[in-house]
């Protein structure tokens, strides 16, 4: 699949950005976890972002020229995205050094700035695809879905890390259920709007519905995790390490499938000849 590097880059980078924002919120809210876990989480987020960027370079004809991407921030969202993720990585290094008992205040301040940059980087990623030449994308949907990827996979990523490190299991049931609810509703509304439209927008919607990826995303990204969460609530069972990991992996695969659907179903404007 030609867009695989972009699929993996967007999902992993958004997951890393979402994970950082989660880590920052947990730290600010005074959740109890060790400095070591904070450090490890920062390293893992850094590595995930670097890996995602390296994967994205496979999409380029000349990966070694990627540094030139910082030069057109005046008009290009791709350029802005590159700058924001570079700044994110630099700030992560600084944030990593602040995991010391006497650095809580500076860590909070630096973490706040890093979280804002992470959010802006996800937004820039979404804005890249708001293109008049791709009518089904030429709206708020790419930005919204990229935010939702970060909001769903990021906390689960941190939850899994914390669980593996033996920290107190984060209560992710309610936040995950809410994000799944928003994601599922907005995705179904978006698909319905596409299908009920005309021309290329409708064709994109039909491509989505005709793709097995659509159903794969529905199941793995939302329905099965939601059923697991509802079952946990019903049986008053807290998510343990195994269950958090299973839900996280399921969501991650669902996000990758969903992003493949995003790139694979789009119809672009073209010259129509017989």
């Amino acid at each position: 699949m030609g867009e695989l590097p972009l699929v993996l880059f967007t999902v992993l980078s958004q997951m890393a950005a979402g994970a950082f924002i989660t880590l920052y919120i947990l730290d600010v809210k005074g959740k109890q976890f060790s400095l070591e876990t904070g450090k490890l989480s920062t390293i893992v987020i850094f590595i995930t972002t670097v890996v995602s960027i390296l994967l994205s370079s496979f999409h380029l004809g000349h990966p070694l020229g990627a540094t030139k991407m910082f030069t057109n921030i005046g008009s290009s969202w791709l350029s802005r995205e590159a700058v924001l993720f570079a700044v994110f990585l630099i700030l992560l290094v600084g944030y990593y050094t602040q995991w010391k008992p006497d650095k809580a205040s500076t860590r909070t301040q630096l973490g706040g700035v890093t979280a804002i940059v992470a959010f802006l980087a996800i937004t820039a990623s979404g804005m890249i695809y708001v293109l008049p030449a791709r009518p089904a994308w030429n709206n708020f949907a790419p930005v919204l879905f990229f935010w939702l990827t970060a909001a769903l996979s990021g906390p689960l990523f941190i939850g899994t890390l914390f669980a593996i490190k033996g920290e107190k299991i984060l209560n992710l049931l309610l936040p995950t259920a809410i994000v799944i609810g928003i994601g599922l509703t907005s995705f179904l509304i978006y698909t319905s709007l596409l299908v009920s439209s005309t021309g290329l927008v409708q064709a994109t919607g039909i491509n989505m519905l005709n793709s097995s990826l659509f159903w794969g995303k529905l199941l793995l990204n939302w329905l099965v995790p939601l059923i697991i969460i509802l079952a946990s609530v019903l049986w008053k069972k807290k998510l343990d390490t195994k269950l958090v990991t299973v839900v996280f992996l399921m969501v991650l695969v669902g996000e990758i499938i969903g992003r493949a659907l995003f790139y694979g179903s789009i119809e672009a404007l073209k010259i129509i000849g017989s």
Partner: protein
Amino acid sequence: MGKQLGFLVDSERCIGCHSCEMACKNYYQLHPSLRRRKVHPIQENDYSMPERNYMSLACNHCVEPECMRVCPVGAYSKRDDGIVMHDPSRCIGCKMCIMACPYQVPQFDPEVKKVDKCKMCAQLIDKGEKPACVAGCPMEAIQIIDITSFNKYGAVKLLPGFPNPSITKPSVRFIKPTIGKQIRRDK
């Protein structure tokens, strides 16, 4: 607005011979998979009478080029005469322009792994010569015009099948084919 060069495509004259495509490919020795100019058949049912007509299209050197807006490395620029240039030495082959152009003009060259597109033979225009496609058309169906001063009766901004020109304001004008001359034998 200053000068804005563009193509005038006369679909009444065009016979779909693809000479313009070949003249360009030959002049620039393009990769076999690339065509900077393409002759598109107009759908037969787009006019009131079934007709076989064509529109020959290359880069439209838009007034507001999407390729230039989205390119992260600034490989695109617009000359004072409105020609949209692409600098291969800056291009990194990210394909963003391919995604953004409503006319699918930029193409990925699999050999050099960069994007390629029509530059209206700017180097020939600077010498007062005609672009390869214009010179190569046996029907004289393609001309270079300055759309800021161009005001020919009957010229239009789009033909059936051409995407909405309001997105990028393409610098191309068409002479519509005359409909109703073709006589078809009944079965």
